[in-house]
């Protein structure tokens, strides 16, 4: 352990640091996207990279997302490690064909001859008062696409660790950045960031015995808060932060649910066809006889993301989580 003081840093700063360290460590890492150069990205995550590494390493592209991802595929085919920034979740949709038909399949269709070590950074989710098309949660689309890894940090330290791991991965990674956590601060030591773990491990953020909240990204903090509030109601909630949606850490999640016997999946993304269905279904398949109640889901409503003035009614909040916990058939136990 280094002796340098641990100072608070924002998630955006940790992401910048991860990019910088990755670029410094490996010449083949290239950043490209809209406004990533002089501006440093609309969220300032690429701040300073063009200056430090030159415009050929951190490149402002023309405004065309399919073109950005498509040229990144070509760059990766030549052996570079492109890190693509999509400006907002909904603006990654134009690149959908490139993502599904090429990025996710190139390794498989070439029988391993042509892997694509490529990271697609997508700021996602709401809670920032964004106007339409600025607050989508698009992870369900990526989860349903074999060949992609899908990860998302909930803490400043994970933002660094997961992004380094994503860039180091020999496979394409969709790296989902929770917009409303960009300015969240944690004590984090940039001079001694935690070791880069491989992608695919969930983590128990809070231990508890009554029930498990299974969550990720922007909803982790909300679940932690809910777990605190739940103490007043006599519930001791465990919070599992998935960190990686693909691969999925069945082991950690199921170990928790087998212990608690009850679970609620919490995410911002819409409920119908969203990640929660998959998670609830696989937990139930594996832990059926440990379950005292069905795995419930607390998610965004199945509506297009609402305008800023209504988003608080849409996003899963502490109350809604506790309501769900309350519906976990506690009487069955007593």
């Amino acid at each position: 352990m280094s002796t340098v003081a641990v100072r608070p840093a924002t998630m955006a700063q940790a992401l910048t640091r991860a990019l910088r360290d990755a670029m410094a460590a490996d010449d083949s890492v290239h950043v490209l996207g809209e406004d990533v150069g002089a501006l440093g990205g609309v969220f300032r995550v690429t701040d300073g990279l063009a200056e430090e590494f030159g415009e050929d390493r951190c490149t402002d592209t023309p405004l065309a997302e399919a073109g950005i991802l498509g040229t990144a595929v070509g760059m990766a085919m030549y052996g570079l490690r492109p890190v693509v920034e999509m400006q907002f979740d909904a603006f990654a949709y134009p690149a959908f064909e490139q993502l599904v038909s090429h990025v996710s399949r190139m390794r498989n269709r070439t029988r391993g001859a042509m892997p694509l070590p490529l990271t697609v950074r997508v700021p996602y989710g709401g809670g920032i008062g964004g106007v339409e098309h600025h607050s989508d949660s698009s992870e369900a689309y990526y989860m349903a696409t074999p060949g992609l890894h899908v990860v998302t940090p909930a803490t400043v330290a994970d933002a660094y660790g997961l992004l380094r791991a994503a860039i180091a991965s020999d496979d394409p990674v969709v790296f989902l950045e929770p917009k409303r956590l960009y300015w969240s601060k944690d004590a984090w030591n940039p001079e001694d960031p935690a070791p880069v773990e491989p992608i695919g491990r969930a983590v128990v953020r809070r231990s508890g015995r009554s029930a498990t909240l299974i969550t990720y990204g922007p909803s982790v903090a909300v679940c932690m808060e809910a777990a605190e509030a739940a103490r007043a109601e006599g519930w001791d909630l465990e919070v599992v932060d998935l960190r990686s949606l693909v691969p999925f850490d069945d082991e950690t999640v199921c170990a928790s649910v087998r212990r608690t016997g009850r679970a609620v999946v919490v995410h911002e993304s819409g409920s119908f066809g969203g990640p929660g269905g998959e998670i609830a279904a696989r937990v139930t398949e594996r832990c059926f006889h440990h379950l005292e109640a069905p795995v419930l889901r607390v998610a965004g409503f199945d509506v297009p993301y609402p305008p800023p003035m209504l988003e608080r009614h849409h996003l899963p909040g502490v109350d809604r989580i506790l309501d769900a916990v309350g519906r976990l058939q506690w009487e069955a136990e007593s």
Partner: protein
Amino acid sequence: MTVMEQRGAYRPSPPPAWQPRTDPAPLLPDPEPHRVLGTEAAAQADPELLRTLYAHLVRGRRYNAQATALTKQGRLAVYPSSTGQEACEVAAALVLEEQDWLFPSYRDTLAVVARGVDPVQALTLLRGDWHTGYDPREHRVAPLCTPLATQLPHAVGLAHAARLKGDDVVALAMVGDGGTSEGDFHEALNFAAVWQAPVVFLVQNNGFAISVPLAKQTAAPSLAHKAVGYGMPGRLVDGNDAAAVHEVLADAVRHARAGGGPTLVEAITYRVDAHTNADDATRYRGDAEVDTWREHDPILLLERELTARGLIDEDGMRAAREDAEAMAADLRARMHQDPVLEPMDLFDHVYAEPTPQLREQREQLRAELEAEAEAGQSPRPEGALR
């Protein structure tokens, strides 16, 4: 006879019997952008039109300033100002007839207002209220469009549909220089030309896509040169010369109305303000550049012309400013009233009939709101949500 047959079909015959194709020459833009103000052509311009344009420019400038101020006061979530681009905004709205359609990008609130939409309604999206505050059919103004260039195929489809129905409708679609790089730009222009749809595409080349300058956006001689690749005329105009923009757009609209098909117009202008209130323009451009453009300000140019030709005096200019102030005062007053949004409305327009699933979710929210109301307020902190 189908639309396809009406237009002389182009099909390469086998070499060596090569058939002459469409002559590209008339499709290419002039090397210099078209100008009226300050040239001899200005003398031919209709004084009434010039005065109308002037009043709208002054109003538009004031609207931009007021909306920006409201953003600082937290009354708007975001405002992408079109200061410096008012000539394009205003001309785009004024060249259209009642029955025509306007397809604005997210920057074109001014065009929407100039077309007659209530200034407060036009800001509905940007104040964080529901996504579109006006009825598009009532005003024949499509919703402000945020995903870049995606409104362009809509304009083509609408114009095509109107033509198939035999209606006299032209669609004018607005897009930025950055937006021309998107695939949707390409596909829309191609469909329009193949279908000979009555559409006018107005590219406001304001030099930047957020921070990205035009040189990183394209290597073309001009954006208007893209037109020849679709087989439609490309026109280049000084976008700060309101009379010139009006003339070029009016020509294009006339051409479309007469069945001549689409036109691509590139208006050279400049975004004087930052991209939006949230942007820091000092990161990517210097003041000197902005200052040069201030000397070529659309209001200044028109004012000079009007004054030189004696079409306006101090009183006239003051009247325009006062009218703009009145609009701004009204806007201010009405924007300071918080809109009342009904949370239950979340579910009402997802489908014509809510699905059973949405009815359940609606019930859930209703119960939550009732519980909240009973408890006086939320019993638990909602800090994590903001």
